């Protein structure tokens, strides 16, 4: 083992002497530190702001005066998605999805005001997030530091000398490899610090450690690729050109080709177009505002039979409230069915793009990192579902109040005597608190398994590649 560590130390000493490697390492580490700090501040701000907006929206709802309950159904409510602790490193789709939704009766609105729409448009290729730096730029830095790690010895003739002196080739390669890995890990330090920070703010240790482990694996893979190419190349310039070519293809091209391919292979209709089908289906249900709509005839008959009356105003409950409740339920079932279908479409597009992780480790680590951080499309979909549940609950509770508390005759006379057709503001307490939390650790871990497998697959390729390289040199 001492031979290995000797080689590692020599490599580091060489880098220190040549300065370029030191400068690259310094810049790389500095960049990741800056991005981690900037992003942490940004995410903390977003968390506070959204938390604050959430509370403001709730108290505003509760502060509404005495009103007709259906008015509150249309008054509606806002919910905000607070980012997960690990999104200080991996914001994921956060900037591209809206982070707030307006909830109201009879409608499912989409999330609005995504950050990208309000941004200057300068960050479409790159962004100052630690994840972009670690996934895309750190491999380039490792390449710049290490492309010549073996070819240099070949060109200077020292490789042959070492071999004839009896240096084990495996020791040599592993030594160089460890030196490269160490440089990569140095640039990973800000991530480790940020993860520890996330742990102190409530993220389970198991998650943050697997998050770090994923990135370490990624560094191991890229250091391996650099080592293999350098060992198989005759000249430093050839090694350099191959590695930069590989970097362009693996880090930039393939991930984007994945998303372009997904859009072509599984085109999605878009909300607007599927909404036609939704409206079509909804029209068959009848208008819940109009209790005289023939669609509610059966409901009326059942109620008459149940209470033994034959006129709407003899019912002990407010029939208009009953209709509102009944039609909201039917309508929500239809809306949910279409919403689920749409989410499935989005998910299958994303799945196609993520399969490109078998073609490049960058897509693999990106999917893995989004899953663990809880900033993936799945999490956003869960936000949509939870928001919908809250919407349905408060709308139905208001409809219940409409049915049980508001007198039918006063309700029918509301255009002449607006004051009597109201219920007390104390009823607005039906609104439950909304706080969106990240997925449970088990969900996140199990969601990330496919992408861990992709990373491990790349790990295997690297191990295999090093064996080929050893055989290549010894011939």
């Amino acid at each position, binding site marked *: 083992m001492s031979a290995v560590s000797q080689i590692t130390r020599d490599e580091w000493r060489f880098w220190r002497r040549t300065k370029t490697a030191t400068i690259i390492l310094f810049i790389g580490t500095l960049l990741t530190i800056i991005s981690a700090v900037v992003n942490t501040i940004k995410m903390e701000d977003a968390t506070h702001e959204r938390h604050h907006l959430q509370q403001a929206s709730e108290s505003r709802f509760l502060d509404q005066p005495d009103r007709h309950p259906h008015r509150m159904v249309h*008054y509606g409510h806002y919910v905000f998605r607070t980012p997960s602790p690990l999104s200080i490193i991996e914001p994921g789709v956060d900037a591209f999805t809206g982070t707030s939704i307006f909830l109201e009766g009879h409608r499912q609105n*989409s999330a609005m005001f995504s950050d990208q729409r309000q*941004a200057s448009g300068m*960050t479409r290729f790159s962004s*100052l997030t630690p994840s972009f730096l670690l996934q895309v730029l750190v491999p380039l830095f490792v390449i710049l530091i290490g492309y010549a790690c073996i070819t240099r010895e070949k060109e200077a003739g020292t490789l042959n000398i070492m071999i004839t002196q009896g240096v084990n080739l495996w020791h040599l390669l592993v030594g160089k490899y460890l030196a490269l890995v160490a440089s990569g890990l140095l640039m990973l330090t800000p991530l480790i610090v940020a993860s520890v920070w996330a742990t102190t703010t409530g993220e389970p240790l198991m998650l943050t450690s697997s998050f770090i482990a994923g990135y370490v694996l990624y560094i191991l893979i890229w250091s391996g690729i650099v080592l293999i190419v350098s060992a198989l190349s005759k000249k430093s310039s050839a090694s*350099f050109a191959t590695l930069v070519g590989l970097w362009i293809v693996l880090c930039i091209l393939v991930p984007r080709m994945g998303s*372009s391919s997904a*859009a072509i292979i599984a085109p999605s209709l878009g909300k607007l*177009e599927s909404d036609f089908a939704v409206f079509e289906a909804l029209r068959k249900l009848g208008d819940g505002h109009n209790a005289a709509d023939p669609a509610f005839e059966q409901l009326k008959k059942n109620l008459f039979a149940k209470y033994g009356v034959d006129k709407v105003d003899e019912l002990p409950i407010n029939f208009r409230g009953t209709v509102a409740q009944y039609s909201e339920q039917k309508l929500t079932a239809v809306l949910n069915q279409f919403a689920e279908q749409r989410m499935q479409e989005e998910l299958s597009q994303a799945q196609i793009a993520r399969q490109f992780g078998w073609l490049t480790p960058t897509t693999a680590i990106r999917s893995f990192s989004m899953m663990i951080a809880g900033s993936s499309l799945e999490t956003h979909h869960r936000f949509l579902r939870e928001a919908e549940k809250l919407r349905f609950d408060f709308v139905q509770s208001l409809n219940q109040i409409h049915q049980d508390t508001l007198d039918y005759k006063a309700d029918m006379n509301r255009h002449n005597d607006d004051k009597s057709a109201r219920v007390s503001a104390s009823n607005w307490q039906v609104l439950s608190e909304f706080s969106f939390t990240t997925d449970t650790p088990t969900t996140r871990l199990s969601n990330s398994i496919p992408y861990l497998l992709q990373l491990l697959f790349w790990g295997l390729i690297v191990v295999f590649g090093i064996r080929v390289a050893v055989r290549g040199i010894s011939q």
Partner: protein
Amino acid sequence: MKVFSNISREARFLFRQKHLLGILSVILLLSIFSVWSGLSEMESQSSTIERLQEKDRIDRESVLAKQSDYGSAAYYSFHLTYSEPSKLAFAAIGQRDVYPWKHRIRMLAIEGQIYETDADNPELSFLGRFDFAFLASVLLPLFVILLLHDIRSSEREAGRYDLLITTAVKQKYLWFPRAFVLSSALALALLAPFIVGAFISGASLVDIVLICAVVMAHSVFWTLLIVWYTSIKSVASQSSTQIASVLLSAWLVVTVLLPVSSDVVIDKLVSSPSGGDILLLQREAVNDAWDLPDEVTWRAFLATHPQWKDHIDMGPTFEWKWYYAFQQVGDQKAGTLSQAYQNATLEKDGLAKRFALLSPPMLTQQLMSSFAKTDTLAAMQYEQDIRAYHNALRQFYYPLMFTRAEYSLATMSEIPEFSQYITK
């Protein structure tokens, strides 16, 4: 003729090198993929708009047939608005995957509807699309660096440098033709698929020439930069890879660091009202109106629409004209905030354009998407068109509602069409 013979000599020399042909054919394939995927994306957007127009018409006709007054007709009927992709949009998808390009609106308060988006899959937007503009702005410099960084040093490393220098009449006859051949081969590999694609999509000759000029200018910039850098005395002793590392860092600075830091700066410079506030204000205004005395709504409404001052009498039951009046008032209340929000977007875009002057790749990207009308300005123009059309709907319905006209489908057939409000 001397120039020509120099060039053909270099071309013959260079194209005998297999790895060069390899790199060029990879670039050609990438360009083909980017053009093809862009074309198919825009094709699908166009046919989506066509389908939507048809569905929208049928849907509205069936809705209108069931109505008996103009108020409910306006309430229940939606109108499709859209922004057709330009003939060049396939080459630069630009902001079209972040901003909406289709929208259905009705005569309720516009501020409550305009921010709804039918955006693309967020995960795909996050990964980014591989369009021709990406190839020409972000990747082109990398290709030029890959092809040209060792233009001198490879000769030196092969031991031919001094021989070449002494035999050449003038140094510039040696390096410029070589750089010229390489970068034109690169430009050809990039642009050929684009030109074919542009003809397929039917782009005008001027547009094609403009895009080609931008791409070539970008490529010339990097070529000259490299030729200049490698001619510096102190660089002459560096190895190919050292030179390439420096050039790569230059690329990193202009494509990553500059845009990212200018984004931070722009964010600090321009303060924008939060979009949520506009919605909140509009919602409060519209909802409070139900509880306010009618006069309050009428006063605010008549301030902007004095011509209806003799028609504001209210019947015993619900009146649509009052309902739409407070929708209008809701928009008026949110107007200042909404204008500030739009101005902030424009201001950010203007600043981004200025910062892009520092970064050739960003400049290329912006020029291309502005030629392709897929930039922020085009998206803002589309929003203006929607607002103009929404206003036209109001102007159409107000006389009918305020004069309590008899509902007739014949009148409804004269409703404004969105196509008349598209700014070319």
